[in-house]
């Protein structure tokens, strides 16, 4: 096994220390208030120019990269909706083989895939599992706006219980059509891949610089790594674009979005929503700010609150793994 040189990343201490260099610039046509554009701009700022990016089909493909007006300063390639993991493996394997055989210069080249919740969390989860079993240096970022935002806001496996989407419209007979609980992707991937050294959840803007440093940490630790980001979406969640940052913060503070990193099996909360920690604000404060939950009645909000409480108070590893304990062994 050849060892490739590493890039030494400094921890970004405060927003004034964020690199000024833009590697994702003008030319895209994402919506006003698009948090995912901030997520995108952030990871490439954090990782720097010696990076190859693959972007899976999704709103951040279609809205981002129009022919002849690419916003990317680094090499970028489209990949299919469910191919995020495979795209990163293919490129990392290619780069490693070419470097080992002396066909290109030995250096650290970051390989980052950017896939949405539909691509990474549903269709492509098998491929990402395959990638996380490999020994290639690659990072997969799942930007989660809780819908298929490109195709006009359809529910995905990561949509929140009760949310209105075009697949789950409230009706006169069924108030709630979105009856699935949000899929726990980061926790599932961390638990299922014992040799993966870094899995994290993040939000591009809260707490400030947390996400940028998680990106750098993932790239520094190396091997296959995974970050799940929570990306408020004004179009899909139905709120004024000026509140994107605030909604991310509220989602984290109410405990719906657990914020943590798992470094070689150790969980570090980067916003502690346990009772013993900073505690949580009621989920209602997050839900009532969005049109997608407007049809909910108190009973529905109580149900969501109960589920979130359970995540933090009954799960063996709060917010991470939905196992509630060990019963007496039957031998």
């Amino acid at each position, binding site marked *: 096994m050849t060892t490739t040189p590493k890039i030494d990343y400094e921890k970004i201490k405060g927003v004034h220390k964020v690199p000024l260099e833009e590697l994702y610039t003008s030319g895209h046509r994402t919506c006003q208030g698009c948090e995912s554009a901030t997520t995108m701009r952030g990871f490439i700022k954090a990782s720097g120019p010696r990076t190859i990016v693959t972007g899976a089909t999704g709103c951040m493909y279609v809205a981002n990269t129009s022919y002849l007006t690419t916003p990317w300063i680094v090499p970028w390639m489209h990949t299919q909706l469910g191919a995020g993991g495979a795209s990163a*493996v293919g*490129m990392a394997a290619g780069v490693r083989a070419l470097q080992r055989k002396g066909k290109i210069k030995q250096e650290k*080249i970051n390989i980052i895939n950017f896939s949405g919740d539909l691509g990474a969390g549903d269709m492509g989860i098998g491929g990402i599992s395959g990638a996380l079993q490999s020994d290639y240096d690659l990072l997969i970022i799942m930007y989660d706006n809780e819908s298929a935002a490109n195709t006009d806001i359809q529910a995905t496996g990561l949509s929140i219980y009760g949310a209105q989407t075009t697949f789950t419209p409230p009706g006169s007979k069924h108030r709630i059509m979105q009856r699935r609980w949000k899929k726990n992707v980061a926790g599932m991937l961390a638990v299922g891949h014992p040799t993966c050294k870094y899995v994290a959840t993040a939000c591009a803007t809260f707490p400030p610089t947390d996400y940028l440093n998680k990106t750098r940490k993932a790239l520094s630790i190396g091997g296959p790594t995974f970050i799940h980001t929570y990306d408020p979406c004004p179009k899909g969640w139905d709120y004024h674009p000026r509140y994107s940052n605030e909604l991310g913060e509220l989602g984290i503070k109410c405990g719906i979005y657990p914020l943590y990193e798992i470094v070689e099996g150790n969980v570090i909360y980067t916003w502690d929503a346990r009772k013993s920690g900073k505690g949580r604000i009621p989920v209602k404060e997050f839900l009532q700010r969005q049109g997608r939950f407007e049809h909910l009645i108190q009973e529905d909000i109580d149900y969501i609150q109960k589920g979130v409480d359970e995540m933090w108070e009954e799960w063996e590893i709060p917010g991470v793994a939905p196992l509630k304990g060990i019963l007496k062994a039957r031998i």
Partner: protein
Amino acid sequence: MTVTMEKPKSGMSDGVYEREELLNGCQAVAQGVCLADVDVIAAYPIRPYTEVMDALSKLIADGAFDAEYIIADSEHSQFEIVKHASSVNARAFGGSSGTGWMYGMEALTVTATDRLPPMFVVGNRALDDPGAFGVEHNDAMAVRDLGWLLCWVTTPQEALEHVLIGYRVAEDKNVRMPMALAIDGAFLTHSQHIVKIPSVAAAKKFLPQYDLAERRLHPDNPISVAPQANEDWVMEIRRQNWEAAKRARGVIKEAYKEFNAIFGERYAQPYFDEYMTDDAETVLIGVGTVAAPGRTAVKRLREKGHKVGYVNLRWFRPFPTEELRACLSRFKSVGVVDRDFAHGSPDNCGILMHEIRSCLYPAKNRPAIVNFIGGLGGRDLSIADAQKMFDITAQAAKKDSMDGYITWIGLRE
């Protein structure tokens, strides 16, 4: 033009061939991949192509060959891995069979539209349901309109050689299309022949290093590949693909010329080869291993004085339109053997029949033409079957009606 394709003529002593081994089609392909100095291999199991990947992993384990070997989680991932490895300028290899090939179809589609030139071996297999391990050609045929190079070979020797020829054509800067090398399940994947293995030096001389040049993804070449284009540009981009497929014919011809120059006169014709057709009146044409019973039947019928011949079509994409039109217009009647089906298509014929009939439409001398569907699900097409097909084809020249236009050979009724 009459040639037999069984053994390379060049001797072992001239340094072009290194050694002889008893190999089946899968193992021969693996030797070709080794000689092509492939950088990235992605594997996923399905019969019957899998043994190619078995053989490659053993070659790597034994240090005979150096490549990244990835065990994918599905064919879709497998093909995407191959595609993306190819995009960073690594020579990449994959493969599949039957429904596995279909499972990865989305990835196969974009590999072609991205104009990337990896190679895939297709160990032809019947599509489910019902399950069957044996050969049928509908799997590989599924990429025929997507911008792929698609070629059938008939022996392990040809299979090995076409890994080298295939990469050379696919990677040519005037082509850059993915290559599907089709080998019939069982009849070629698992039938053993003595194979002469080219020397590394000779293979290297024939196959230059892969260079995607201005289209490779690397931090030193920061391009954006395949952004959303919509109606503004898609038509022009499709036209570029079309031009490349057109240019591929010339590149294929050149590749065989060069191959013959290095390895001895292996291939008299690039796109197809003809057996005892010089004075023939009735010929059969097919792809893949049906050539073996086809040629043997020719030999036997010739002994009885019948003027018959066999045309083995090697390159299906690009289709050798002009050459095949000129070739087939020389005969009185042509029987097209399809190891595939196209249910509900015009006259209910097979895929190959449609292509050949379409190719012959503008010909000045159109031969009588009939279609055979046979060998489905891996059923044997015997010498007796081939003789029967020659008989029906010869009769066709004397008929005005469409009677007997399509015959299912070997069907229990």
